[in-house]
């Protein structure tokens, strides 16, 4: 697949149809793959990568790239296209300046998942699609790819691209019977004290590095409310400020109805806080209360918080359903 | 018992707010036992509201109410006069030795067709 992608990218660069290519390249470690911009065939040959470790969602980069001179080629995995489509819907990306090539994905390997199995001193990781080989300071070990995948890939919601100019490889389908809400349900089934304890354990680790905000395709505001003096939420530097206290819930609310559940927030969190469980709660509630809705799937559908029906449930439904007492 | 206490007792047993009455008299207009009563349903409401309970306690009217609920059904203010009458009656028979009907009275009141329902009802209404 990688060579096919490089070949197409070179062709499009050579014909002048695109001015640059957005893809993946190796970072500090070979398992630490980061987004990259390529403008020449040479750069592509030397650095372009596409393998089971290319986790990053490239759609958000297109907000800036699509405003540059000339067209930009971007490779998007199925789940990335939902984010891309959502950004198109919000007029954040100039579609005419982007050439989208959809690439297949059968789940990505995640270094945090591998670390969680107990391996330390990881030097490099490779995957052949079935088995993942991990080289560590203390020797090599192998594991099945399924064991090395992050939760978001195990519970993949779709292998279908919702937007593209051309496709490489085989197109997949929406995964209808994924189990992505299992953990949300588990939390809902807890008592309020258990829930509070759960979130206290998770959120108290936050160091406000803003990685979640920076990576999130839905957090693409020109100026974040937390950086805006007039928003009332701006309170730099004070550790017990409103901003610090309420950051995650406000962020989750701001992306509610717009979040495609790409899971990047949790992936990049250096403290491994499962932030996606906040977003998924909103998604689950929206599905249950207002009908199934997948952000990014349909370009014409109104976002659930920007529409209503006269028969909507009352907020008091929370007292009746909500979580366990 | 003080006058006011009696009034409170009746209101508490009945759960009725007598102040809702607008004195239309529909309860008495609809009462099937009107002619047999010394004090009529609207008077029960008015007298309880004004605390004039004593005459009601000693009147035979409390045993004439059929508890047919016509007054309750038709009252435009939802006052429920029948509940007040019941409360006054209970205030009487709950006192010691104040049962309206004694066991000994019973045999001569019975006939062979009389349904049990009438006997148990009367016991519930007349005795404690």
């Amino acid at each position, binding site marked *: 697949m990688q060579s096919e992608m490089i070949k197409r990218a070179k062709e499009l660069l050579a014909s002048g149809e695109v001015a640059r290519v957005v893809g993946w390249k190796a970072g500090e470690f070979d398992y630490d793959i980061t987004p990259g911009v390529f403008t020449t065939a040479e750069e592509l040959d030397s650095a372009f990568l596409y393998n089971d470790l290319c986790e990053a969602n490239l759609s958000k980069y297109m907000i800036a790239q699509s405003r540059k001179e000339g067209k930009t080629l971007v490779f998007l995995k199925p789940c990335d296209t939902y984010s891309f489509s959502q950004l198109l819907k919000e007029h954040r990306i100039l579609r005419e300046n982007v050439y989208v090539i959809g690439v297949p994905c059968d789940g990505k390997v995640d270094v945090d998942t591998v670390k969680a199995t107990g391996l330390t001193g990881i030097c490099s990781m490779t995957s052949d699609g079935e088995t993942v080989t991990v080289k560590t300071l203390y020797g090599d070990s192998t594991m099945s790819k399924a064991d090395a995948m992050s939760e978001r890939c195990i519970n993949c919601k779709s292998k279908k691209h919702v937007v593209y100019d051309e496709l490489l490889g085989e197109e997949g389908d929406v995964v209808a019977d994924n189990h992505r809400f299992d953990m949300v349900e588990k939390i809902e089934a807890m008592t309020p004290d258990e829930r509070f304890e759960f979130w206290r354990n998770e959120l108290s680790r936050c160091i406000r590095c803003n990685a979640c905000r920076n990576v999130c395709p839905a957090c693409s505001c020109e100026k974040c409310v937390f950086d805006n003096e007039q928003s009332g939420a701006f309170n730099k530097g004070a550790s017990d400020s409103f901003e610090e206290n309420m950051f995650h819930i406000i962020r989750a609310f701001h992306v509610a109805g717009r979040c495609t559940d790409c899971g990047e927030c949790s992936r990049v969190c250096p403290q491994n806080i499962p932030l996606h469980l906040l977003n998924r709660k909103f998604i689950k509630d929206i599905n249950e209360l207002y009908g199934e809705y997948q952000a990014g799937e349909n370009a014409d559908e109104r976002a659930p918080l920007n529409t209503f029906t006269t028969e909507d449930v009352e907020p008091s439904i929370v007292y009746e359903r909500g979580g366990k007492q | 018992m003080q006058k006011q206490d009696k009034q409170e007792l009746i209101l508490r047993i009945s759960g009725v707010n007598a102040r809702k009455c607008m004195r239309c008299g529909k309860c008495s207009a*609809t009462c099937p036992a009107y002619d047999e009563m010394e004090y009529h349903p609207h008077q029960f409401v008015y007298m309880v509201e004004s605390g004039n309970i004593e005459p009601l306690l000693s009147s035979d009217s409390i045993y004439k109410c059929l508890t047919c609920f016509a007054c309750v059904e038709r009252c435009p203010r939802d006052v429920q006069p029948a509940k007040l009458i019941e409360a006054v009656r209970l205030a009487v028979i709950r006192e010691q030795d104040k049962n309206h009907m004694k066991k000994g009275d019973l045999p001569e009141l019975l006939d062979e067709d009389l349904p049990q329902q009438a006997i148990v009802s009367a016991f519930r209404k007349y005795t404690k």
Partner: protein
Amino acid sequence: MQKIGVFVCHCGTNIAATVDVKAVAEALKGEPGVVFSTDYQYMCSEAGQNLIKNSIKEYGLTGVVVCSCSPRMHEQTFRKAAQSAGINPYMVEIANIREQCSWIHKDIWSATEKAIILGKAAVAKVQLNAPLTAGESPVVKRALVIGGGIAGIQTALDIAEAGFEVDIVEKQPTIGGKMTQIDKTFPTLDCAACILTPKMVDCAQNEKIKIYSYSEVADVKGFVGNFTVKIKKKARYVDEDKCTGCGICTEKCPVKNVPNEFNMGMDNRRAIYIPFAQAVPKVATIDANYCNMLKNGKCGVCSKFCTVGAIDYKQQDTIVEEKYGAIVVATGFNPIKLDDFDEFAYSQSKDVITSLEFERLTNAAGPTSGTLLRPSDGKHPHTIVFVQCVGSRDTSGCGKTYCSKICCMYTAKHAMLTREKYPDTDVYVFYIDVRTPGKNFDEFYRRAVEEYGVHYIKGMVGKVVPRSDGTLMVQASDLLSNEQLHINADLVVLAAAIEPDKSARSLATMLTASMDTNDFFTEAHPKLRPVESPTAGIFLSGVCQGPKDIPETVSQASAAAAKVIGLLAKDKLTCNPCVAQANELMCNGCSSCEKVCPYGAITYSDKEFRMPDRTTAIRRVASVNEAVCQGCGACTVACPSGAMDLKGFSNSQIMAEVDAICK
């Protein structure tokens, strides 16, 4: 930092009795920005206003906080005072320490503490207030009156008289409303038709008035001065312009068994009909529910006999769109359904009737040509029982909690007229209270008793028992003699409560005009603005606002007209300056705000921006049309970036209030 003056009002004892006003003024002195703080007996009085004005000048105030009654009461007053002293009127904030403090709390300590906190919140808000300037919007010089009864007719005539165009929308085939069904009017006993029909004709002939009969309002958009209304003209299957009202079709139509609503269903009309002789417009209408031609395509008699070719079986409902500067609601009333009052046997006996049915039985154009005859057997009734308050003052859930107001007087009228025309009739009126507070009203009622010998009995009817001989046994109480009465009556007349027309509820939703729990429209102020809805540009005429008799309805109708004329006389209206505003630098161009705006006030355009790095970028950004925005703020929450804010109720202002309250 603002220089803020705080003015604490005693409102006589209304506030001062429960709130230590001096302590409030003292406590607020220490708030940031407050340079002056005082209390006064009546802030709204001229002296009180002068105190504010002089303090503004003396201390160079830039912001004012008045701790007083509800802003809904005197915000305008204090804004004007501030303006006349040279500061922007929107630099004034009110802390509501009367309705929301002194009047609802008894304990002085806690009421005072709360008043201080409310004052602090207002001070915190004023700190962030900015001067606002109101824009202007043009006024469409045309009014719409919804409902063509006496209320609507009077309002329309008065507006037209002042030279403005006015349209009447009436859902029935003719204007005239309930008054057309009434025989005589109390207390003067004028013939209702004689005083109403000339007004109906005036409407038809007035060049400024356009009547949409057999029509309904389908949609309302816009705001004061600028409403766009869709009117649905229901198909009447008769060309209004061609029909001469000759009535030949209504005589030839073979369908004869349609209950005649004009006579309360007590006789029949044809499938094609003109409601009554003086109808305006005098045009036939085909009742599609009964017409054979429309139901199964077999008949066509009316078309054959119509000499002007007015019949059009293919006619469809049409929608007309018009623009108006003001809308008057005059949707009127109906008697309630008596299903829940069958102890009076209304559904079991034809001789138990409502007062409006009685009205038709005594009217020369009614089913008995004005002779009072029993509906069941056409015999003259010798004993008539009138029952008052049927469904009025009823808190049991079956009826209406309010007094219907008109029943006492029309019952006295019915009783009196019956005794006058048929002296051999015994007439009983059962009443709970007789309410006659009007000019010559009580005299009228007393005449019924003293001169006409009507038996007024204080008490209520409990049960009406129809019998096989046609009599009605009326069981009732006579509270004054402490007796239960049993009267053998021939006719029982029920004074059914009146309720707002059922169409009013959906209309209120379209107009966004508020209603009370009984579906009467609420007025902007119960005493001082009784003919205006709180929604600007919507006015109230007649019973749609509350029970009224004819003289009151006509007065209110003219009052509503005066208000409309006052509005239409202006060329421009001052807009509400508290509107949304997009900060272009922060706007993402995502369109969320546009989607939730109920007025279509937000548009997007591509604009060129100079970026911090000296390059330029073209970005899609929102802008708000200030003349269209009504200031609800839906967009401000939909906006993820906080670029959209509401002037006068900005994010930071509300946050400051929250902080002050929670401190």
